[in-house]
C-alpha cells in the first residue's frame, strides 16, 4: 500500500494528529519529572486513526522491510576512507540495535570487487591440492552433508582502526561498527576436507572467493579441521548477496577478511600462499618498523552502544539503561565491567545471557542518572582470563602505526545535557 492509498483508506496519521503526537513526545524530553502530564494526552483521549481504520492486509509486503520510522537504522559509509565504494566498507548501526543477532540487511559490508550476483545453480566449490580425491561440489551437494547451526561474530580486523592515534569518529557505528553476529547454517569445513581426504603433507588450506578480487587467505589445517564452517544460511534465511550468497566461509573468532565470501576453492597446501591480503594488508606494523603477520585471532573487546554519540540521553534524569556488546575470538565472555568515571572505578555489568564462544554478548548496567557528567567505559573479560586493555596499554606495546586489531577500551564523555562524545582519557 502506498502513501496515497493509505490516506484514502483513512489510515494515515493526519497532519494535526502528527503534530499532537510530536508535542506529547516532546514533553517527555524534559525529563522524568514531566511524566505527570499537564493535561490529558490526546493520544489517549482522542481516537487515533490506527484505532479506527485498517492496517495493511497480508501480502502488502511479501518480504517486509523495517517500518519507515526506523529508516535511519541503516549501514553507513565513511566516504573519505576509501577510493571507491566497489572496494570499501560500511558500518553496522550497532548503536540502534539490541540483543545480539545482527539482521543481515544492516550488517556491515566489506567488498573488494563489489557484491556479485551468482545463482545457486551456477555455484561450484572445488577442493584440490594435497587431497586423495580432488572434488567439485554443487550447491545441492552441500545441502546433503550433515548440517550444523552456530552463532558467531564477524569482526573486521580494521574495526576501530581509525582510532589508533586518537579519537576520530564520533559514533559507535563508525568506531566499532565493523562487526556483525549471525546464526549460520552450513557444513563444517572438516566434513568436506574429510570427503576429499587430506594427505599428511597438507598443513594449510588456501580459501578463495569467486568474485573478481579473488580474495584468498591461508588457514592452518588445525583451524580448518576445528571449527570452520561453510555456511549457506544466516539468521534462518539464505545469505544476502552482500554476505556472499550462496556460500561463504566462517572462521570463528578470526578476522573477517578470512571469512571468504562466494567461496569457490579450497586448496590443501604445504605452506601458506602469502597472498596480498596476508602480507601487504592485515599485517600489523610495530613501532620499530617490523610487522606482525598471521594475527588472525580477534582479542576480547566490548563497547557501550547506548548512551553513545549517536544515542544521547533524551529522557532526563532518573533510570538509565547503559548497554553494549562484548565478544572474544578466543572464547566466551565471562564478565563485563562498566566505569562511569573514565576507568577509575568499575561495576560489574549484567550479562543478558551467558557468554557464548566467539559470539556477541549483550550487557546492561541499570543506573539512576542525575544529570552528572560521565566518562563511560566498558571492559570485557573472556574465559581465558584476558582483560580488554586500554588504548595506552596497546600503544605501549605496538606503537601508533598499527591499523588492525584495536580492541582497546572506548570512552564516551556523556555531558549533563545527555549528549555524548568520543574522547580519550588519561
Amino acid at each position, binding site marked *: 500500500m502506498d502513501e496515497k492509498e493509505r490516506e484514502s483508506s483513512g489510515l494515515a496519521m493526519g497532519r494535526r494528529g502528527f503534530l499532537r503526537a510530536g508535542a506529547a513526545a516532546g514533553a517527555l524530553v524534559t525529563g522524568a519529572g514531566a511524566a505527570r502530564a499537564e493535561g490529558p494526552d490526546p493520544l489517549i483521549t482522542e481516537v487515533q486513526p490506527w484505532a479506527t481504520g485498517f492496517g495493511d492486509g497480508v501480502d502488502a509486503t511479501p518480504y517486509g522491510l523495517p517500518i519507515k520510522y526506523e529508516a535511519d537504522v541503516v549501514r553507513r559509509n565513511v566516504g573519505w576512507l576509501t577510493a571507491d565504494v566497489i572496494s570499501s566498507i560500511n558500518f553496522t548501526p550497532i548503536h540502534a540495535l539490541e540483543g545480539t543477532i545482527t539482521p543481515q540487511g544492516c550488517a556491515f559490508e566489506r567488498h573488494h570487487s563489489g557484491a556479485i550476483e551468482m545463482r545457486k545453480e551456477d555455484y561450484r566449490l*572445488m577442493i584440490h*591440492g594435497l587431497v586423495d580425491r580432488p572434488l567439485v561440489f554443487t550447491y545441492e551437494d552441500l545441502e*546433503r552433508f550433515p548440517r550444523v547451526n552456530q552463532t558467531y561474530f564477524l569482526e573486521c580486523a580494521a574495526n576501530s582502526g581509525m582510532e589508533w592515534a586518537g579519537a576520530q569518529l564520533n559514533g559507535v557505528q563508525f568506531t566499532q561498527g565493523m562487526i556483525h553476529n549471525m546464526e549460520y547454517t552450513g557444513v563444517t569445513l572438516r566434513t568436506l576436507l574429510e570427503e576429499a581426504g587430506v594427505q599428511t603433507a597438507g598443513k594449510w588450506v*588456501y580459501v578463495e572467493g569467486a568474485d573478481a578480487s579473488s580474495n584468498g587467505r591461508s588457514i592452518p589445517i588445525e583451524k580448518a579441521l576445528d571449527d570452520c564452517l561453510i555456511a549457506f544460511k544466516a539468521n534462518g534465511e539464505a545469505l544476502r548477496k552482500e554476505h556472499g550468497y550462496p556460500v561463504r566461509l566462517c572462521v570463528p573468532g578470526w578476522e573477517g577478511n578470512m571469512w571468504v565470501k562466494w567461496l569457490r576453492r579450497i586448496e590443501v597446501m604445504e605452506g601458506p600462499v602469502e597472498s596480498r591480503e596476508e*602480507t601487504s594488508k592485515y599485517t600489523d606494523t610495530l613501532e620499530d618498523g617490523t610487522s606482525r603477520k598471521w594475527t588472525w585471532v580477534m582479542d576480547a573487546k566490548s563497547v557501550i552502544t547506548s548512551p553513545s554519540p549517536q544515542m544521547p540521553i533524551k529522557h532526563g534524569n532518573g533510570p538509565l539503561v547503559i548497554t553494549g556488546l562484548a565478544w572474544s575470538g578466543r572464547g566466551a565472555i565471562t564478565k563485563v565491567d562498566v566505569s562511569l568515571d573514565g576507568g577509575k572505578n568499575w561495576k560489574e555489568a549484567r550479562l543478558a545471557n551467558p557468554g557464548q564462544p566467539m559470539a556477541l554478548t549483550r550487557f546492561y548496567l541499570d543506573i539512576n542518572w542525575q544529570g552528572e557528567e560521565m*566518562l563511560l567505559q566498558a571492559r570485557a573479560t573472556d574465559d581465558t582470563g584476558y582483560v580488554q*586493555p586500554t588504548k595506552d596499554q596497546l600503544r605501549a606495546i605496538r606503537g*601508533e602505526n598499527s591499523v588492525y586489531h584495536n580492541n582497546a577500551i572506548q570512552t564516551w564523555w556523556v555531558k549533563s545535557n545527555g549528549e555524548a562524545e568520543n574522547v580519550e582519557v588519561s
Partner: protein
Amino acid sequence: MSKFRNLVIATALTAPLAVPAFAEPFGLGRAALPEEIAAWNLDVSPDGTGLPPGSGSVADGEELFSDRCAVCHGEFAEGVDNWPKLAGGMDTLNRKDPLKTVGSYWPYLSTVWDYAHRSMPFGNAQTLSADETYAIVAYIIYSNDLVDDDFVLSNENFLEVEMPNADGFIVDDRETVEYPEFSKPACMENCKESVEITAHATVLDVTPNDPNDDAPAAEAPATDAPAEEAAAPAAEAATEVAAAAPAEVDPALVAAGETVFKKCKACHKIGEGAKHATGPSLNGVVGRKAGGADGFKYSPAMIAAGEGGMVWDHETIGAYLKDPKGFVPKNKMSFAGLKKDDDVAAVLAYIEATGQ
C-alpha cells in the same frame, strides 16, 4: 539403514556442536578434472610454485602499466588520490604514518605477480596474460628502484629479485608479548589518581552526518587511509632534502637528464613552444615564483608556497624533485619523486639547459 546414517545419529549424540570425523566418505560431489583445477588454481607461492613460464621487460611494463594500471595507481605507481601507492616509502616503516608499497613493505614478489594476475586490473580482473603480468611486475619493481630500466623479469630469474622488507615480518607473538600482560586481575576500585580527557573526536569533525555522506577525499584528514589502512590523520612529514650542488653545464649530464625527464614529460612540456599540459610548462621555471606560471591552475598549496616567498632555483627544484609531497605538502603533482641524487642532478641540468 545405511551405514553412514547410523554414524550420523551416533555422533550427533556425542558431539552436538560440530560434526566429527566420519569413517568413510559420503560419496557426494564429483572428481575435479585436471582442466578445471588448472583453470582455477592460479595462486603463486613465495617459492615460485604456480608461476607459469614467461617473461616481460620494464619497457613493455611501462607501456602496459600506463594503459591498464595508471588510472588508479598513477603513471609512476605513486597512486592517484586514495588509490594504493605501489612505489616509494622506503625506510618509512618505523616512522609515523609509514608508506607501505610494494617496494617498502611487500615481503614476497610472488604476491605482486599473483595479485596482479588474479585480481587486477580493477574492474577487469584476470585479463592479463602471463607475459603481460611479468612486464607489469617488472615495471612496478623498477618504479621502486629495485631493478634497472633494462631489466626483464621471467619465471627463471623471479626468485633472484630481493624484496627490501623480506625480513620485516614476525609471526603473531601476542600470546607471549601481550596475553600475560593483559591477563592480570582487573582493578575495580580507585584504579587511577585522576582522569583527564586527552582527545576529542569532535576536534577533527570527520564523522559523516548523513547516510549518503560522501565528502571528497581531498577534504578529509586521513587521505592516505583506505579502510584497511585507516589511520589517524596524516601528519605533514616534510623531510629535509639535501639539494644537489650547483654545477657547471655538463653536456653528458644534460643528456642523462633528458633520459630521466621521460618520467616528467607525460605532464610537463619544456623547450621551444612548450605549453601548459597536466603540469605547467617548465620554460622559465628557474627564477620563477612557485605557482607563478601564467595561465596554469595551481593547487592552493603551491600558490601559498609562492606567496610565502618560494622561488624555483637550483636548490628548491632539487628538493622538490626529490620529494614533491614532502617539500610542498598537498600540492597536486602526483609524482613520488626521484630517489637517486644523480637523477635529480641530471634533470636539473636538463631543465636549466632546455627551459630558457
